[in-house]
């Protein structure tokens, strides 16, 4: 069981949250100009790193707000929690081969 620290409510059990996949996937500027392949890339293709991963969570049983978490996919260790208005923290990424993505 993960214990996630909601930016507004504090530490709550994982069962109060829902997972929202990879964070920082921007909506295309001009969706109508995308090829089918580019659209499919945007809709369906996500990173699958072995290590720190920035992902979205929503506190669905609490304040119902979305926020971002950097979680190490190997250890499930939560490295950072931040809101949409915060920049992505450098925590964890710099130590990886290739650096931040």
């Amino acid at each position, binding site marked *: 069981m993960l214990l996630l620290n909601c930016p507004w409510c504090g530490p709550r059990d994982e069962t109060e949250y829902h997972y929202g996949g990879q964070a920082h996937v921007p909506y295309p500027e001009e969706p109508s100009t995308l090829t089918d392949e580019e659209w499919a890339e945007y809709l369906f293709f996500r990173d699958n790193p072995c290590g720190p991963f920035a992902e979205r969570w929503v506190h669905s*049983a*609490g*304040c119902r707000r979305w926020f971002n978490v950097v979680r190490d996919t190997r250890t499930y260790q939560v490295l950072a929690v931040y809101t949409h208005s915060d920049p992505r923290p450098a925590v964890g990424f710099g130590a990886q081969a290739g650096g931040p993505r």
Partner: protein
Amino acid sequence: MDDLTLQRRSPLADLADRMRDGAVTGSRHVRLAELPFWTMISVRVDPGSPAAAAVEGVLGADLPRWCGQVTAHGLDHVLWLGPDEWLIVSEVAPSDLHGALTDAVGEAHAAVVDVSANRTLLELSGPGARSVLEKGCPVDLHPRAFEVGRAVSTTLARVPLLLCQTGPDTYCLLPRSSFAQYVACWLLDAMQELGSDFQDGSAS
């Protein structure tokens, strides 16, 4: 026109007898009761805006600014639901309070909605109350972490509800009306064992 409030039927009307009979006696006594028909108004507004100040003016109380905080004035209690979302639980008639609040916010970017039928209120009270809730609530209710006057949105027995501590041994639970029967039956079942004289010695 007839007073329609006379025809109201609470979500747990059918369980009133079972809740009364389910009261547990003894050293860890605990009882469950429904306190139906509270006025509940949902408010969404930017907390720093003039509209928020107008709402606070009507209520005579500040909108809570952090998770768990409850403010109160007169017949109104204001619960924090999110950074821009609150629930007013009140004894004022729904149309009166809703009307006063919508007049106060005017055309501002805000939402004031009468959600009185959305939830009902269950009161669980007695020295055994915390033990009952701890069987199915992920929030730490120990006095070191929770206290009288706090209210949080969480889950009990896997369903979402609002939980408030209103006295040293008294908690109010506000489940959605459609979940109320499940929550009440779950609580009645969880209460049963406290009637036993057995003490496990680890109670804190």
